[in-house]
C-alpha cells in the first residue's frame, strides 16, 4: 500500500493530477451481462446486412473463370510447334545485326586503356602532395640520390679488390702425395680390419686344433689305460704350466695344501722361537 501511495504522490508531483486523482478502481464499466449477449448480437448484425449471393453463384464460378482464361489467352494454331524455330531465327537475326568490327578483341585492351586515360580527369599529383606532405612535394621529380658516373659499372670489382686485396685467390689443389696418402690410409685401415678378423679366426682355429690335439692325446691315454703312468710322469714344469694356464696361484695352492692345523706351530713354539713359522714353512719346502 505504501508503494501505491508513493506512485500516486509521484504522479501528482510529475504534473499529472488527473492520473493522480484516479484511484485504483477500474474506471470503465459495461452493462451487466454485456459479454454474454455479445456473440448473438454480432451474428444478428451480420445477418441483418443484405449480402446475399445470386443462386448457383459458386456452381458457375469455375466455368466462368476458365472461360475468361481461354478467351483472353488464345494461342494461334501450331504456335508451339514453330516456337523454337522462331526463337532461334530471331537470335540469328540479332547476332547478324550486331557484328563486331574486325580486330575488335585484339585492340580491346588498348582501346579500354585509351578510353580510361582519355576519360580520367588528370589529377594534379603535385598539388595533392603539397597538401598531404609539403616536405615530400618539395623534392619534386628530381632523384634526390646521386652516384658518381659509372659507379655501378665498376662497383663489384672495386668492392672485391677492397675486401680481398690485390692478391688473386689462392687455389689449393690436392697434391699427388696427398691423394696417394688417402688411398694408402684406406688400404691400411682395411688391412688392419682384415688382420683383426684373421687374428680372431686364427686364434679360434688354433684353439680348436689345440683342443683336438688334447682330445686325441686323452683318447690315447684312455685306450692304453695309462692314466696313472702319465700322472707319475708329470714334471714340475708340466704341473706349473698347467696350473698357470688355469690362472691358479701355485704357491698359494701349495701353502693351502700343505697346512694342516695339527701340524702348525703351537703358541708355545712361538714363545720359544720367533722363527717357528718360518722354520715350519722351510720344513715344508715352501720358503727358503
Amino acid at each position: 500500500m505504501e508503494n501505491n501511495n508513493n506512485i500516486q504522490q509521484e504522479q501528482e508531483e510529475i504534473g499529472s493530477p488527473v492520473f493522480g486523482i484516479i484511484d485504483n478502481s477500474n474506471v470503465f464499466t459495461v452493462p451487466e451481462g454485456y459479454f454474454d449477449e455479445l456473440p448473438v448480437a454480432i451474428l444478428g448484425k451480420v445477418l441483418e446486412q443484405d449480402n446475399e449471393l445470386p443462386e448457383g453463384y459458386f456452381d458457375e464460378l469455375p466455368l466462368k473463370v476458365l472461360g475468361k482464361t481461354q478467351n483472353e489467352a488464345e494461342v494461334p494454331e501450331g504456335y508451339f510447334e514453330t516456337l523454337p524455330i522462331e526463337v532461334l531465327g530471331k537470335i540469328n537475326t540479332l547476332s547478324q545485326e550486331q557484328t563486331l568490327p574486325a580486330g575488335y578483341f585484339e585492340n580491346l585492351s588498348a582501346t579500354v586503356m585509351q578510353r580510361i586515360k582519355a576519360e580520367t580527369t588528370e589529377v594534379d599529383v603535385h598539388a595533392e602532395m603539397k597538401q598531404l606532405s609539403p616536405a615530400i612535394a618539395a623534392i619534386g621529380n628530381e632523384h634526390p640520390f646521386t652516384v658518381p658516373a659509372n659507379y655501378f659499372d665498376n662497383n663489384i670489382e672495386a668492392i672485391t679488390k677492397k675486401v680481398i686485396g690485390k692478391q688473386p685467390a689462392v687455389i689449393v689443389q690436392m697434391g699427388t702425395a696427398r691423394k696417394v696418402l688417402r688411398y694408402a690410409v684406406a688400404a691400411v685401415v682395411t688391412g688392419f680390419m682384415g688382420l683383426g678378423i684373421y687374428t680372431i679366426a686364427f686364434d679360434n682355429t688354433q684353439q680348436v686344433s689345440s683342443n683336438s690335439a688334447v682330445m686325441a692325446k686323452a683318447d690315447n691315454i684312455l685306450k692304453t689305460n695309462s692314466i696313472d703312468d702319465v700322472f707319475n710322469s708329470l714334471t714340475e714344469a708340466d704341473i706349473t704350466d698347467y696350473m698357470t694356464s688355469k690362472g691358479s696361484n701355485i704357491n698359494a695352492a701349495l701353502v693351502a695344501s700343505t697346512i694342516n692345523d695339527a701340524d702348525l706351530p703351537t703358541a708355545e713354539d712361538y714363545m720359544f722361537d720367533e722363527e717357528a713359522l718360518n722354520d715350519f714353512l722351510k720344513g715344508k719346502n715352501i720358503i727358503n
Partner: protein
Amino acid sequence: MKNFILAIVFLLGVSSPTFAQPGGGGQNSEKVEALYVAYMTKQLSLTEDEAQRFWPIHTQYDKDLKEVERNDNELERQQNALNVKKKYQDRFIKVLGADRTNQFFKTDAEFRKRMIERLKALKEKRGGGPRRN
C-alpha cells in the same frame, strides 16, 4: 708421407702383440690337459655322445673360471669362482644329470689336489728349490 709412415709403424706396433699371444700353456700344459680329460672321462664314465656335448661347455667354463682366478682379492676370487661354478651347474646337469654333475665338481677338485700333491712331492724330492712369493 710422414703421417703415413707413422701410421704404418703404429699399426705394426699395435698388431704385433696379437701375434705374440701365447697359445695357453704350450706342450707342457697340453699333456696335463689330456690327462685331465682322460681322468674325467673315466671317473664320470662319459659316453662319446656325452663327451661331445660336455667338453665344449667345459671349455667355456674353464675360460670363465680362469678370468676370475686372476683376482687378487681372495674372498672375491673364491666368491666369483663359486658363481661361475653355479652358473655352469645347470648346463652340466643337462648333459650329465645332477648326480654326475656333483661328481664332476668333486673329481675336478680331486684332480687339482693330486696335481698339487704331486708338485709338492716333486719339490720335496728335489730337496728344496722352492719358490718365494
